[in-house]
């Protein structure tokens, strides 16, 4: 192997399960075990288990108000209750997204910050450079992250947590607790649109937790299924739908940003808001089983008006779905358009999110 890839603590499990692995942000990760569509179905109908240990975990200790951490990202930690977490962005001065992240308020003066694998090094440097006090640690390589997602995830998981009623855990809440008598952070979050939990444990517990949940009926699913699941919900993927050149306003994620408070990148966003965004990420559906992929060109009235940032087949809808960045002045949202590469031209129209309605 040419690249020196990192392995998660569950690497041998993936090999034993016959996974097809891919290099993903420096990690050797399972893209599928058997079939992406089957694994997608496990999550929508039962409970799927994902190894997402490649993601990064930072820990901050210090004063939220005076350290600079509250202005380092778009997340207003100051109003975040202990036991809750919130989604937001690490922005550059131009308002472009360096990474998207989730911040957990572990205690008054203690936070966990979850970032994408691709961003670990740069995010750490960037956040650290924005602090004037407090300590920031990157503990990414010590933690494993196992996601259980799907309608049966609660019943499978409940028996491991006698002290917690999982029904009482609201979306974007978490508990620091124990599993098999060892530390565990149990988070009621996910990237699939299904009810689910993300379990953070130290690496030496990963195999024990994984095996137990598989034995109880959770079915391993790879990053391929995870991508299909998030796409059906229209969730952004960093590197595709969010980049350093795309602002949260352009990505149609303004609801996650409070422009009334100060944070780095705010001025650029205020200007964008005042002038109106020139381009916008829109959800699309194809009119057939065909899927447009990243970098397909959006053509309307014989003119190039944008590009696809994410695209794929929705197993639930039986059509292609995705997100495309379009020129606001040129785009007619009531009119069909084509998504093209050298080989294909696929008819599509604007859709609304989520592509599939849950519950």
């Amino acid at each position, binding site marked *: 192997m040419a690249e020196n890839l990192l392995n998660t603590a569950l690497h041998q499990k993936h090999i034993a399960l016959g996974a097809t692995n891919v290099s993903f942000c420096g990690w050797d990760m399972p*893209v599928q075990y058997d079939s992406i*569509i089957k694994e997608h179905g496990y999550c929508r109908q039962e409970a799927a288990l994902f190894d997402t240990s490649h993601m990064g975990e930072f820990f901050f200790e210090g004063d939220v108000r005076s350290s600079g951490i509250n202005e380092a990202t778009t997340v207003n930690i100051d109003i975040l209750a202990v036991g809750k977490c919130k989604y937001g962005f690490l922005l550059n001065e131009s308002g472009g997204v360096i990474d998207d992240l989730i911040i957990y308020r572990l205690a008054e003066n203690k936070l966990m910050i979850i970032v994408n694998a691709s961003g670990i090094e740069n995010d750490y440097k960037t956040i650290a450079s924005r602090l004037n006090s407090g300590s920031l640690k990157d503990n990414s390589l010590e933690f494993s992250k196992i996601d259980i997602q799907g309608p049966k995830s609660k019943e499978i998981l409940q028996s491991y947590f006698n002290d917690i009623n999982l029904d009482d855990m609201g979306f974007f809440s978490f508990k620091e607790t124990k599993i098999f008598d060892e530390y565990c952070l149990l988070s009621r979050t996910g990237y699939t649109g299904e009810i689910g939990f993300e379990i953070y444990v130290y690496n030496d517990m990963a195999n024990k937790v994984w095996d137990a949940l598989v034995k109880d009926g959770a079915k391993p699913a790879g990053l391929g299924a995870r991508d*299909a699941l998030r796409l059906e919900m229209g969730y952004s993927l960093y590197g595709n739908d969010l980049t350093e050149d795309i602002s949260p306003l352009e990505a149609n994620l303004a609801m996650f940003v409070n422009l009334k408070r100060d944070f780095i990148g705010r001025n650029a966003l205020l200007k964008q808001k005042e002038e109106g965004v020139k381009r916008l990420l829109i959800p699309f559906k194809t009119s057939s*089983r065909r*899927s447009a*992929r990243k970098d397909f060109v959006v053509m309307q009235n014989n003119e190039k008006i944008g590009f696809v940032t994410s695209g*794929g087949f929705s197993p639930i809808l039986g059509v292609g779905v995705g997100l495309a960045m379009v020129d606001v002045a040129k785009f007619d949202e009531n009119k069909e358009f084509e998504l093209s590469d050298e*080989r294909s031209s696929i008819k599509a129209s604007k859709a609304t999110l989520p592509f599939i309605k849950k519950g």
Partner: protein
Amino acid sequence: MKKFNEEHEWVSLDGDIATIGVSKYAVNQLGDITFVELPEIGDEVSAGDSVVFVESVKAASDVYSPLSGSVEEVNEALLDTPEILNEDPNANWILKIKITAKEEFDSLMDEASYEEYIKTL
């Protein structure tokens, strides 16, 4: 008897009618197939031409005709249920062509040679 080309298509011949599909190996590489674009009946094809286009959850790929001839029949079941290629790629054919050069068939790999070939990939 099935024969194979290096692009992972299989062919069986009955008189001058060749039935063409894709190999198990190809299907495993593609993953779940979600769309198949079929040619028109009567289309003239030369060996090596792209004749079918396949999309999977992971990727998109051309299928190259192993033989020259004209398209005689297409498997229309693939339009609504392309997943049958994943379920049984050896039984579920994609198209049939009326061939014009039998020697092209003779020069393809037999199953044993094809099995050896994919070991080298």
